[in-house]
């Protein structure tokens, strides 16, 4: 039997600043000063806590991370263990999640990939994150603070706010509960054993500010590893680069595989590998991962996925080929590799890769002038020479946050259970 994780969702329909923090009747009230004092840090030059409402004429720039407020119900001090909270095995017990509100970090250190997002106006519908209220942590590094120290401080502040908000929901009756547990599996309808399916993802930990934290430990240069699927959903494994951890908290492949477990497949486990730059390293990562899937997890099939960019496409292709060669049936998920115009970015052309899902595509969006900008001085490299207030046209790939995730989310379906607010 695997771990049993229960996530209790509490729907947040409105967020406001007020004199006393609390959550009742779907209305989340945040005492801004109390939160400020709780998360401020000497490493910040300044800190602003902003509230952005869905439908508002607002463009958020340099949005580095977006997370759902969550905490462990019995031991909130053990939330995000090793990364923020006290060390404890994650992915078991009960977790409180606020649905409809997110904590978003604006990033001021150097990073070549910085996303932006319109929460209102005609482009809002192209992002799942425009459905949410955003509690924005807008903090710049103080003079002389290194990028790494700033990145750490920002993540800590953001997670402190995250747990602070989630704790307000601990005693409330959840609007929905999901249970994730891998129980024993019998044969299929035809009396034969169900196909054993492993899930393999290449992530990217290449330097200190493009890193992954697993229970707080830096995953720089990590080798292929087996992780528990519920650990990923429960905040033990976080990216600290430009991808939103919301997509790990709600990892849709893991959730679907767990739901299908015992029905038409047996989900046998998750293998993560790291993206490395040199071809021999890439090939080796693929082979080790393939060995873990076949010989440790006893998989018949593998779903191959990745975070990171073009490099990781190549890693996925090499792993895919190893896995097929070792007798496992594979399908691969890639984002933004369709041949729809204005053009996606397929860097592989290997006919052996014969089963690929394209989970999201590129669009050219027309961004109108907005009334409010968040993170104006944080600088979005892809918007160099463009007035971020608008109007401007831009392609969405690796620029517009929430149109798709690296792992398979798409604005059409992700968070479609959270109703959109009309323009306010």
């Amino acid at each position, binding site marked *: 039997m695997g771990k049993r994780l229960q996530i209790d969702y509490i729907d947040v329909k409105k967020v406001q600043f007020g004199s006393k923090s609390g959550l009742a009747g779907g209305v989340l009230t945040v005492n801004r000063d109390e939160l400020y004092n709780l998360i401020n840090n000497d490493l910040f030059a300044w800190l602003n806590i902003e509230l952005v409402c869905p439908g508002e004429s607002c463009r958020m720039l340099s949005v580095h991370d977006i997370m759902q407020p969550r905490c462990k119900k019995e031991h909130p001090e053990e939330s995000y263990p090793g990364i923020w909270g006290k060390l404890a095995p994650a992915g078991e017990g009960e977790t409180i999640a606020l649905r409809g509100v997110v904590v978003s970090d604006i990033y001021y250190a150097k990073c070549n990939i910085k996303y932006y997002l319109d929460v209102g106006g005609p482009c809002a519908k192209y992002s799942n994150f425009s459905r949410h209220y955003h509690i924005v942590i807008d903090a710049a590094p103080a003079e002389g603070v290194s990028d790494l120290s700033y990145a750490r401080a920002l993540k800590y502040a953001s997670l402190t706010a995250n747990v602070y908000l989630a704790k307000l929901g601990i005693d409330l009756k959840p609007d929905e509960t999901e249970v994730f547990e891998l129980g024993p599996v019998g044969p299929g309808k035809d009396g034969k054993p169900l*196909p054993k399916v492993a899930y393999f993802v290449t992530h990217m930990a290449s*330097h200190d500010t493009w890193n992954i934290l697993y229970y707080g430990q830096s995953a720089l240069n990590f080798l292929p590893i087996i992780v528990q699927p519920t650990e990923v959903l429960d905040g033990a494994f976080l990216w600290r680069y430009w991808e939103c951890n919301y997509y790990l908290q709600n990892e849709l492949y893991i959730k679907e595989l767990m739901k299908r477990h015992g029905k038409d497949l047996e989900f046998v486990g998750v293998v993560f590998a790291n993206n490395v730059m040199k071809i021999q390293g890439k090939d080796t990562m693929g082979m080790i991962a393939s060995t873990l899937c076949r010989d440790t997890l006893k998989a018949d099939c593998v779903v191959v996925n990745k975070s990171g960019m*073009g490099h990781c496409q190549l890693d996925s292709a090499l792993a895919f080929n190893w896995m097929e060669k070792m007798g496992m049936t594979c399908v691969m998920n890639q984002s933004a*590799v369709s041949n729809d115009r*204005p*053009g996606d970015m397929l860097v592989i*052309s290997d006919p052996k*890769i014969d089963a690929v899902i394209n989970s999201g595509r590129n669009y050219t969006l027309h961004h109108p002038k907005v009334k409010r900008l968040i993170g104006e001085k944080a600088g979005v490299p892809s918007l160099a020479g463009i007035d971020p207030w608008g109007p401007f046209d831009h392609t969405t790939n690796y620029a517009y946050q929430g149109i798709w995730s690296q792992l398979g989310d798409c604005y059409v379906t992700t968070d479609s259970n959270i109703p959109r607010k009309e323009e306010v």
Partner: protein
Amino acid sequence: MVKKYRVVHYINQFYGGYGGEDTAGMAMLVKEKPVGPGLELEKMFDGKAEIVATIICGDNKIAENLETMVPKVVETVKKYNPDLFIGGPGFNAGRYGMACGATTAAVAETLKIPAVTALFAENPGTDIYKDSCYILETENNARNMKEVLKRLVTFSLRLVSGEPIGDGKKEGYHGSGPAVEIDYSVPAPKRALKMLLAKYYNKPFRTEVVMPNHEKIPTPVLDKPLSEAKIALVTDGGLVPKGNPDNMVVTNSTCFKSYSIKGKDRLKPEDYEVRHQGYNNAYVLEDPNRLVPVDAMRVLVKEGFIGSLFDSYFTTAGVMTGMDKCKSFGEGIAKILKGNGIDAVILTST
């Protein structure tokens, strides 16, 4: 009686029997029967399909008026309510190839019916339309017309029957073929597991991403000794002068630029920055010669190992930039290099 598939065929004035270059301005007309290569096509269909209409148009008329003429062709095709559209084949004929590509792509995209043409790799119509429709590979002349028609017939019948079509390398078509219709209203994992289980149980499945059949670029041969060759440095690693004077973007590049290295023995770190979001550029910032090796090239010139180094380097950011744009940058850079008598290039990538 088995239903015969209805086919509309597109050909030019020459194959329509209306003359050659002198009648290239001829307006579009329709014959409700097979004409020219269509006669052979219909014979090869062997009763499985009939050509219900042949659209004939002058090469100049259509190639010079694609925007107005292609919709007219599509309108006409629609009138006949066909199961299949065949263009040409156009082999290496430039304007005819454009017409075959444009009409086949437009029919596939707007009428959503099977459509196919056949062209030579270097036909300008191939490059523009190979990712919008099926363009079977041909040689550069019509000598093997019969064999190409046969392949068109076989491929067409597979298309109309709904049989899965493999990638271009396997099936003998250029590029990646028509855009795959993807139903984004079904979450990716559900589509993926459906595909995986079909593959596992040996049932038919259709990939959403067809691996492209890229054209082969022959490697050129240096026609003089290296010691006499004039060499240029080109990079897609985004090295630009400090201050980024031309506002080069770090992804989805919009242009390439060239910057002078005249009189420089090496590139100094304080004079350069990197505009490229796809790699950790700390090592390049520390020493830009690692990306654009001016220092090493100067030594090789001094030693007489190479003839000379071109006075400017060319740069763009090759990250998340579409193939068509990259290609146009490459062609633009090559044109300037050719114009300056450059014999060889060192292209550094990241």
